[in-house]
């Protein structure tokens, strides 16, 4: 045990010395920042009010459409050519074209928006809301209920305004970002495990180590220990990062546990992959295995990914799945036993 710890500590020291640890943290920061860019970008696309973009736009209307005209409050044009002229000159941001409004059958409306301009997002959100209103009016004119009439209240029965698309950032954080941070950590740590093992083999230092009373199993255990200690250091880092970004992480101790289990699963796979021979082959086998396993992690709520999503979001979760997850920590042992073969030949 003492020997195992000594080797693990030696490896961790070299990781710190090469500043690879700092880089791993920077990597997490990077993933988190880009996820927030993506979240923000999608929000702006679907709901510009988030970015303080006011939903007004100068719209030109072409055609004989009295109801649409009253809903849109648009500038009226006689011909599409005239409207296009003003559109190209930047006087209006959108053209709505409905040649003849039909009160009893379907109206097909053509909209022209500027291409590759941010104003186009603003204008399209404005038009979307106006057209929902137009749809409601037209339905009512036909004696059909205009909208579902659904109301939203707070718990004190005051009317509540829930922005449309509020679920998009929420789901991106808990369904994509948190699992992604967990998986990046696991892949980084497992990749490092492969390096620790193959470096000893390829520089032939493993011969020296194994000539001492150290057994192959102990050598592998020490490398696994180093990798697990690194995971235990990296996981709280991304959780703190999230909390600093005002993301609420519930049950964070359990989140750490699930993340460590995921690291252990990846390290086990990496350990078996080292049997491929050198670093190049081992990393290749490992990457392929990881690519195969990651989609599966997202395909059920009972996987570590499904569990971490709900645990971090504070939703109810299955205790038995957590127990099964923790039990899979024991995978490390058979993996170590199998990969011993590397040192036999």
């Amino acid at each position, binding site marked *: 045990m003492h020997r195992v710890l000594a080797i693990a500590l030696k490896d961790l020291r070299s990781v710190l010395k*090469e500043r*690879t640890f700092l880089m791993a943290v920077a*990597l997490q920061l*990077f*993933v988190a920042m*880009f996820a927030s*860019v993506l979240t923000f*970008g999608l929000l702006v696309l679907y709901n510009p009010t988030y970015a303080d973009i006011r939903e007004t736009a100068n719209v030109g209307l072409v055609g004989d459409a009295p109801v649409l005209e009253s809903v849109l409050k648009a500038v009226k044009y006689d011909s599409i050519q005239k409207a*296009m002229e003003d*559109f190209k*000159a930047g006087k209006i941001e959108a053209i709505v074209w409905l040649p003849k409004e039909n009160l009893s059958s*379907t*109206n*097909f*409306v*053509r*909209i*022209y928006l*500027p*291409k*590759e*301009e941010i104003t186009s997002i603003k204008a399209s959100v404005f*038009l979307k809301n106006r*057209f*929902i209103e*137009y749809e409601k009016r*037209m*339905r009512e004119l*036909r004696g059909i209920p205009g909208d579902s009439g*659904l*109301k*939203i*209240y707070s*718990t004190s029965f005051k009317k*509540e305004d*829930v*922005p449309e698309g*509020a*679920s998009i950032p929420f*789901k991106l954080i*808990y369904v994509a970002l948190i699992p992604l941070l967990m998986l990046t950590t696991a*892949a*980084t740590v497992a990749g490092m495990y492969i*390096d620790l093992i193959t*470096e000893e083999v390829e520089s032939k230092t493993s011969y020296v180590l194994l000539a001492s009373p150290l057994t192959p199993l102990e050598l592998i255990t020490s490398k696994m220990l180093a990798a697990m200690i690194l995971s235990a250091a990296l996981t709280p880092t991304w959780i703190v990062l999230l909390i600093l970004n005002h993301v*609420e992480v519930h049950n964070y101790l359990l989140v750490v546990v699930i993340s460590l289990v995921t690291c252990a699963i990846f390290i086990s796979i990496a350990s078996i992959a080292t049997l491929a021979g050198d*670093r*190049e082959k081992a990393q*290749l*086998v490992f*990457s392929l295995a990881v690519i195969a*396993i990651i*989609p599966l*992690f*997202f*395909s059920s709520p009972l996987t570590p990914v499904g569990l971490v999503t*709900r645990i971090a979001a*504070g*939703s*109810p979760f299955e205790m038995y799945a957590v127990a099964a997850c923790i039990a899979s920590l024991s995978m490390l042992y058979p993996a170590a036993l199998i990969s011993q073969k590397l040192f036999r030949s």
Partner: protein
Amino acid sequence: MIMRLFSISRLELRKSKKKYTKSLILVLILLSSVALISAYFSAIEGVKSDNKLYVVAGPYAVNERHFLCYPLPLKKSIALVKAGKADAALGNLFIVTGKSEKSLAATDELRSIIQELFDRELYKRYGSKAFPVFISVEYVKREISYQIELARQGREGGIKGEQKEAQQSKAQIPVIKTPEKPPAPITKPITVISAQEKYVTPRNFSPPNLLGKLIYAFFFILPSYFAAQIFSSSLIEDRLTKRLDVLLSTPASPHTVLMGKFLPYLVLSIASVAAVSIVLGKSIAALIYVIPVILFFSSLQAFFAINSRSYKEMTFFVISTSLFVTAYIFIPAVFSGTIPVSKVSPITLMLSSFEGERVSVKEYLFSTFQFYAMAAVLSLLAAKSMTPEIAHSSRGIAEKAVFALSSLMGKEWHVFLVAIAAIPFVFMVEFMLLSVLFVLPPYYSVAVFIGIVAIVEETFKASIVLAAVKRNLLPYMSAIACGAGFFTGEKLILVLNIATQYNNLLLAQFFVFPLIIHISTTLLFAFLRHRPSFAISVASLVHFLYNMAVVMVLA
């Protein structure tokens, strides 16, 4: 030269042939097919890891996978929401929501489920009469932002002739086709797809993005990442086992060795892209968009393989750079069609060409030139690092890069060229920072951005000057050449007018005398060069203060 190149490629192939035994190849094929099956399975099944994410209580059952339902009377349900045990309570045409982000998200999803049910019910009862409006959108290019940019330049004494040209083009009105009548029968209540246009109900109308198409791009890029990974692994192995030194002792130049080793993997990448385009039924023209990315990515990996100290360091570099490059090429594609700078990525162009859009030569050059240029610079640096004194030293990567740089510069005017060559890298780093920082409130983000730009630019310039000094070039002359080169590189982008929008965001038009600041900060660095980190900080601070002052005065 060519013969040597091929013989090195042959050696590389023979090495991998020996390495990859039949059983290992079998394992790899097996794993790849498992990966394919698992990807296919998840694509069909969809994401299920978020099942039962929300808790809804109430007398009405919600049959949707995101919701866990507690069938309770309304009063008890509202009490649960109050206690934070449920996210929302569902009553008769109303939702009671809690205050947390999760409650709001649950309410939002519940609302869209109810909306969909309502639409379906309307269709059942009233048929197509209940859907009086369908809309279709066409995006039309106009030259507005371009004119604003020119007007600003005009104020600074810029090009007046082009302004006239822009006005002329404005006067031309394109012939507009009258839309063909879409087919009348409505099969589904939500969308009607005619031959050319897509008509949707107002609720289903959203701004364009290529998010859904991104998955295609992944299939095109991913196999090449693997090829690059094997290439760099093989390279680092050759370096550590000193096989590289043997190859270099032959008459083959470092460049030939590097290219010869890379050739088989390039062929592999091209073959994979071709295979993917056949499988997905896309044009083989995808190659012209993917190749610059492959070249850049592989040369980056080659540079790290030659310069990293250990496998561990290499692994971290590989993972970080893959993420970085992936983000740089994929994120802009998400915003294509709405944000002009999205064309900075070749992937955006590839996806829009799949959509049937024409990509102009200018757009192609704008997005790919930087990748070709960076690939050239990186492979040059990698080849220069392939000497035993750099490859086997235990120095850090940054120091080795400076070493490799110094071997590129024999005369002071070389410094000028190197500074120009640094511009694409600066562009890439600053673009990434800009896209990350735009999340911050604008009040801070301008200051933070200008600060980081100052640090990035000064660091690049300082490394070049340091490398020049290492080569015993005159420090102050090199500093002037470096500042001037940087300025020229920046202006080249402006003059070529390929990045109008980007410059707009970079506030480039505000900096009237950037030449002076570029040269004076490098001179400052050269003066303080014996304490490099202190010198970089001082130069960055001066740069930052200058830019801030210019922005304050002009804005």
